[in-house]
């Protein structure tokens, strides 16, 4: 009987312990944020309208707004109203090493979710869907990638678009020359100064670049999609707690329809710095993704 009592007491104690322990042990990024009191956000400087610097050099954009919702949710979840956030600039080439090294906790830019990248990083639900098109001068006469035979093409180093155009070049023996610019602005400048005739990039970013150019009418975005590019917020892999949390926030925004308001703010209204309206309604693909969120790569 004494034994029995001991067993019951032990069992009760165990149950009590379980009940008073925190709902969930913090791991990975969540733990890091709790310990350091800072959440570090990676941003881009010219990925309009996702993540770019406005006229006061502050990071703004669609992805930044989504990330600020995540920051708010983290504050509530960890009960840390004083949680600080820090913006860290990243580029196409640095975003993955900076994330894996832990210098940022979340990348809020315009990053295509690819299966290859998923070997090193993870993604939240896809929040935008685009594809590669060509930026050319309006008077160039170029209509599709087939017109680029033997011509010089500007690519931004380390982008999925570089891969797409080079794969086409190899597959169809088009004999293109490539100039490897370090960012989107420089790629555009390379075309503007006549060194290259085309710049393949996600079409939405091209619309943004053109809208912010001093004379948008000189430019044209042409061709069929050369590659599909689903964008997602990038996070470290093998960090299930953080991934589930970020997805819960993004999924919540999708369910409540709040993401449509954020979308409208950046794609259907005038945006800084030049107050231009991109006027791009939600595509049918993105509509599907809002109804059934997923984070499938390409």
């Amino acid at each position, binding site marked *: 009987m004494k034994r029995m009592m001991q067993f019951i007491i032990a069992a009760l104690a165990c149950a009590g312990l379980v009940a008073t322990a925190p709902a969930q042990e913090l791991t990975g990024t969540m733990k890091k944020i709790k310990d350091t009191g800072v959440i570090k956000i990676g941003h881009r400087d010219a990925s309009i309208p996702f993540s770019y610097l406005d006229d006061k050099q502050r990071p703004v954009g669609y992805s930044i707004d989504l990330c600020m919702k995540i920051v708010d949710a983290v504050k509530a979840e960890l009960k840390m109203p004083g949680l600080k956030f820090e913006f860290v600039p990243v580029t*196409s*080439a640095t975003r*993955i*090493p900076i994330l*894996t*090294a*832990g210098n940022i906790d979340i990348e809020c830019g315009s990053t295509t979710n690819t299966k*290859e*990248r998923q*070997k*090193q*990083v993870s993604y939240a639900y896809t929040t935008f869907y685009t594809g590669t098109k060509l930026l050319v001068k309006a008077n160039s006469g170029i209509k599709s990638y087939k017109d680029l035979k033997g011509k*010089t093409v500007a690519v931004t*180093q*380390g*982008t999925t678009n570089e*891969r797409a155009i*080079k*794969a086409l*070049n*190899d597959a169809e023996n088009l004999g293109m020359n490539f*100039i*490897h*610019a*370090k960012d989107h602005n*420089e790629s555009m*400048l*390379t075309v503007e*100064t*006549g*060194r290259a005739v085309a710049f393949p990039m996600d079409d939405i970013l091209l619309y943004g670049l053109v809208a912010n150019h001093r004379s948008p009418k000189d430019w044209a975005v042409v061709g069929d999609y050369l590659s599909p590019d689903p964008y997602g917020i990038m996070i*470290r*892999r*093998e*960090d299930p707690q953080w991934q589930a949390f970020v997805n819960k926030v993004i999924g919540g925004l999708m369910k409540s329809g709040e993401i449509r308001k954020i979308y409208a703010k950046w794609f259907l209204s005038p945006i800084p710095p030049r107050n231009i309206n991109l006027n791009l309604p939600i595509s049918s693909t993105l509509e599907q993704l809002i109804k059934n969120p997923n984070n499938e790569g390409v």
Partner: protein
Amino acid sequence: MAYNWNWGVFFQDAMFGPGTYLDWMLSGLKWTVVVSLAAWLIAFSVGSVLGVLRTTSFRFLRGVAATYVEIFRNVPLLVQMFIWYFVVPELMPKDVGRWMKTGMPMPEHTSAILCLGFYTASRVAEQVRSGIESISRGQTYAAYAMGLTEVQVYRHVLLPMGYRIIIPPMTSEFLSIFKNSSVALTIGVLELTAQSRQITEFTFQGFEAFTLATVLYIMITMTVILLMRVVEGRFRVPGFIGTGGR
């Protein structure tokens, strides 16, 4: 940290183009060496002339050389790269500009070589000047007293001594040019650092790529150091620079 090390990445077939990622690295190595050596030829010759001009008795020439040195060594290399590549062709007459942009063979590489060469020339010039100025005045006066002309004084007295005194700092400049050549990636030269970044972006094995790049850079610089040590051992002036190299 969740990082998957994979040294086999260098033997994978590259995402595009023929060959493996190792071939990308070797092509990067080739361009680092080619750009640096070509730029060093410019830097050494132009820098020598400027260094001499900075010490001549002609005030106007001294002024010209001093202006060059101050402009080229005070503007960041990154900015100079951008100017040579994007701005200079626009300032030229239209046809020349168009040729520089599309006709010139390998515009990025040529611009990078010119930029790096003329930038380093300003630094070489200062080393040459310091070498010449470190020779005691007495030697110059003695040379003039023997009836040598200014050209002869430089040719037979100042330069043979000056160049030998500045071998150690020149070695540093020679090393710097290899390391500075990585700035050329900003105008699209796919040298060693640029290729490492490319491989990082296409395979996400950045640590492997940059580790190999580091090893290759060290191999280049060690070769230069050994070479310069031989030069130093052969040409140093006993008593002026240390017995380094022995």
